């Protein structure tokens, strides 16, 4: 088990699996008409060929015991990874509330929460400052995109 975990932490092994998976999925979605599929098939076979190269490389690494677990995550990196996960979560929530509450509330919430979250020393002053920065950014984006470039931002479905 430990050996398999170690092997799966080698970037070449993961690259092999990733490229093979992409090429297989693409290949399974192709059809028969030559002119429709010649180009995607060329790209697909290139991926198969490259994944085969990495497969040979990975096997030789396993056989010679030269596996490098370069994808291993250090304990020190975990807080940073949590930051990325939280930020991705904020974006996901933003996309959910964008149509429910419209541009203003969703954008203001995304920016305010993200800026406040990343601030290492939060107090009333920094939270207010984060709000002001978020408000100004939303205002500029709103004026530029909607009034100069006529981009119709999503409106709130709850408030009309």
């Amino acid at each position, binding site marked *: 088990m430990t050996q398999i975990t170690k092997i799966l932490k080698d*970037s070449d092994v993961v690259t092999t699996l990733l490229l093979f998976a992409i090429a297989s999925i693409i290949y399974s979605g192709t059809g028969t008409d030559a002119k429709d599929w010649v180009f995607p098939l060329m790209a697909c076979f290139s991926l198969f060929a490259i994944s085969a190269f990495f497969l040979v490389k990975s096997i030789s690494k396993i056989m010679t015991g030269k596996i490098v677990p370069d994808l291993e995550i250090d304990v020190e990196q975990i807080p*940073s990874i949590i*930051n990325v996960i939280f930020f991705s979560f904020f974006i996901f929530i933003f996309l959910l509330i964008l149509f429910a509450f419209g541009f203003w509330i969703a954008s203001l919430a995304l920016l305010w929460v993200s800026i406040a979250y990343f601030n290492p020393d939060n107090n009333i002053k920094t939270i207010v400052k984060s709000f002001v920065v978020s408000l100004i950014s939303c205002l500029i984006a709103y004026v530029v995109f909607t009034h100069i470039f006529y981009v119709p931002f999503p409106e709130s479905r709850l408030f009309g």
Partner: protein
Amino acid sequence: MIEAFFLAISPSYLLYMTIGILLGLIVGTLPGLTATMGTALLVPFTFALPTGEGIAMLGGLYVCAMFSDAIPACLVNTPGTPAAMATGFDGYPMVQQGRGQEAIVAACFSSALGTMFGAACYLLLAWPMISIALQFGPPEFFWLGIFALTIIGSLAGDSILKGLAGGAIGLLISCVGISHATELNRFTMNIPELRGGVSLVAALIGVFAVPQVLSMVLGLKRQEYIAEYRAEKGVFLKTILKVLSRPIHFLRSAAIGSFIGILPGAGSPIAAIVSYNEAVRWSKDKNTFGKGNVHGVTASEIANNAAAPAAMIPLVTLGVPGSSPAAVIAGALMLRGLNPGPELFATDGVLVYSFGWSLFIAGIVVFFVGMLATPLLVKVIKIPLRLLAPLIMFLAIIGAYAIRNNIFDVYMMLAIGIFVFLARRLGFHPGPIGLGFILGPIIEPSLVQALYISDAVGVQKIFFSGIINITLISLSVISVAAVALSRFKARRLAKQA
């Protein structure tokens, strides 16, 4: 031509052109807003103006957007438009090294030079250039795209195979949607929004901006700013002299940009990529490219700006626009009852030449506007990453949405962005993925069209004959061989060391 020049320097021409330039500064800087979108939105406002002033304003916006797209490419590694993708390859490393001011000044000055060169071609060489461009058919475009793909060798980072795989993934993403041959749905998974394909701009924001923002977030504990930055005296002059010190580099980049600009459908992004590739190939210090070589920035910017005025050449000579913004300008002319093409040259030569002069002067104005704005723009580096990361992500989301007013593009941008972010951990460089995505829409239709033609006369005759095909194939082979040789040498030197 003299009469046209005096018309182009009249106060009303200069005023409206400058307004167009200022709008172009915003359009290029904001990811998601393209020069095409900017010119299209500006067309209704130009109706109130005389024709000359109206198209000068549109031309000003177009050429300035081709410069200002370099600003986010350099400062936050997010190209403002696809044409600036290659600018970020060296522009962003320069910023990381604290050379942000130098990167922006180089981009601005080379953009101005490129625009002026392209405009000079428009004024002086329109007819001879167009006669060469007319030799380009589908097989030639196919080989041009393949030649542009060879830049992967310079972008791949440590592993050329991972670079090639990235390029193939980019090409595959570009295949999503209705096929060029029999209008078949490919890889759409029955999602109606995917029938039109993945939006180029949204995908490029995903490839470059999203992984960049997530990396900023990942590095927040270690790094507070993109880079240390202090304004230095004399950078303007030093950078300008550095750009001028390579006249052959300038001429090569400008000639590539102007020539590719006149090829309908190729446009500024391809011009910038091919020019960057050639700059690397002809350079004595190849290894410094991708690590903050100022000539990487200038190669891309000279070419993509030279391509902008040059894209007007087929419009005024043949009535065929060389790029999407040129097509919008053609539309603006047609709405006024003017038919772009040889007829317009004959009936309204002053208008045609005054437009050329406006583009030339726009290059000079872009330089001054850029120089005035540079001290302000580089201050982005001084914004803490904890503020910058959410703001860039916010702009990226709005930009991806704005291009087609479609939230699905935002989902695609995020999906591609997260994929590229994770792929970067495996040693993939985002450049080849973006490159594949840009070149796919050029290579595939050309390949399919050429295959149809080859049904009648044979593959050999279509793909492997003719001076242009042979030249492009030879250049591609030389390019690949040069990369392989330089990597082999570098590896041998590393082993010896």
